[in-house]
């Protein structure tokens, strides 16, 4: 790893440890939900990280279709992997929270359904990358899937919302300011920043590995041709 990347990785590790300490030691116990409420910090942060990663998949796909830039495609590819990881974390932690609070691991609410469909679509994105001929075809097909998936997810959310909904409303973006005590808000902000830093580091590390792999593949090809 390069030196700035090593420093960023060390910082992300420290920030995650700090966020963990704040979640369990600093943030107060929720009066209504009790201990399970502590899942909220990482659950929402992971969801934000997933959206950021998928926005990078979208941006990388658009730039690739525009300019056939290999770097844009590489960014889209590694962001999809990291985004899928954080979507999985969001779904698993949300289910663990839902069992004690709602009494069931799963309900077919708008946010849950659209997050599940989100997971399915980016899993399909990675499958396209694996099945299509490597290189230009895989990159082009994946870019199309990545762009349409990003358009479809809000529509899934909206359709189910129109139909019925049960997920708690946003407490951060609530009308009249955040509906959280300041200790909880600070804990959430620290966790969100730590998770975003971790996301950035994971994407950068995967990007570097992919770039090196492509470089090695190019060198092997050159050596075989010579």
């Amino acid at each position, binding site marked *: 790893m390069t030196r700035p990347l090593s420093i960023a990785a060390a910082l992300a590790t420290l920030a995650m440890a700090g966020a963990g300490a704040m979640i369990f030691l600093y943030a107060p116990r929720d009066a209504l939900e009790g201990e399970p409420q502590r899942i909220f910090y990482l659950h929402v942060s992971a969801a934000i990280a997933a959206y950021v990663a998928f926005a990078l998949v979208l941006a990388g796909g658009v730039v690739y279709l525009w300019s056939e830039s290999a770097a844009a495609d590489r960014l889209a590819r590694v962001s999809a992997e990291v985004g899928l990881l954080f979507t999985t974390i969001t779904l698993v932690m949300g289910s663990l929270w839902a069992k004690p609070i709602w009494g069931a691991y799963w309900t077919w609410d708008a946010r849950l359904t659209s997050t599940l*469909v989100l997971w399915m679509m980016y899993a399909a994105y990675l499958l396209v990358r694996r099945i299509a001929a490597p290189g230009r075809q895989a990159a082009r097909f994946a870019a199309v*899937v990545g762009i*349409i998936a990003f358009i*479809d997810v809000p529509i899934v959310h909206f359709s189910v919302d129109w139909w019925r909904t049960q997920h708690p409303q946003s407490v951060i973006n609530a009308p009249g300011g955040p509906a959280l005590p300041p200790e909880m808000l600070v804990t959430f902000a620290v966790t969100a920043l730590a998770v975003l830093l971790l996301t950035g580091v994971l994407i950068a590390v995967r990007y570097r590995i992919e770039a090196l792999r492509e470089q090695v593949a190019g060198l092997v090809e050159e050596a075989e041709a010579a």
Partner: protein
Amino acid sequence: MTAFLRVMGAVAGKDLRTELRSREMLPSLAQFVILALLIANFGFDVGQAGPGVIAPGVLWLALVFAGLVAFGRTFAAERDQSSLESLLLTPASRAAIFLGKALAAAILLLACEVVLVPGLALFFGTPIASPTLVGALALATVGMAALGCLFAALAAQTRARELLLPVLALPLWIPFVVVGGRAVQIAMGAPGAGGPALGLLLDFDILFVVVASLAARFVLDD
């Protein structure tokens, strides 16, 4: 614009003429949906739940899987006979070729629904002539054909195309199943008005037909 429509009509006409001469797809699809009804009848405890509760789900399951078969075939057949390349060698716009094929596939699936809905009415006692039911199915078919054919074109150019199409198309069809499903439930006796659902389906159709025809250029490339 007229050239665009002419290409689209010619491609759709070619596909429908092929089907009319070979008579492969429609009989298989019709048999497939009737078999789906048969399996649903024994899979569900129809007497317990009441046919009106089960029928909308049976309808959508049969329709979605018939759609996968129909859309998969439209591009797989071109691929098998290497006729996709010659079609793409013509100076015609990619979007027009794509929309022509999607139109033919949508008409084929509509023909399949003409078997499915009376079959459902016969076996499950559901209404046939409800405008909400007919409208929801027709509108959902258009959008599903646009997305389904885009990914069928993509999948046909890869190995393992039968694997890829359902994985890509099914999650993207969810909005049509959610809203269309609601409309069919209303048509089959659930409380509520079907109008807003039909309006939403029309919005989805416009959006996805535009998006799919813009993306067609990148999927039908070499």
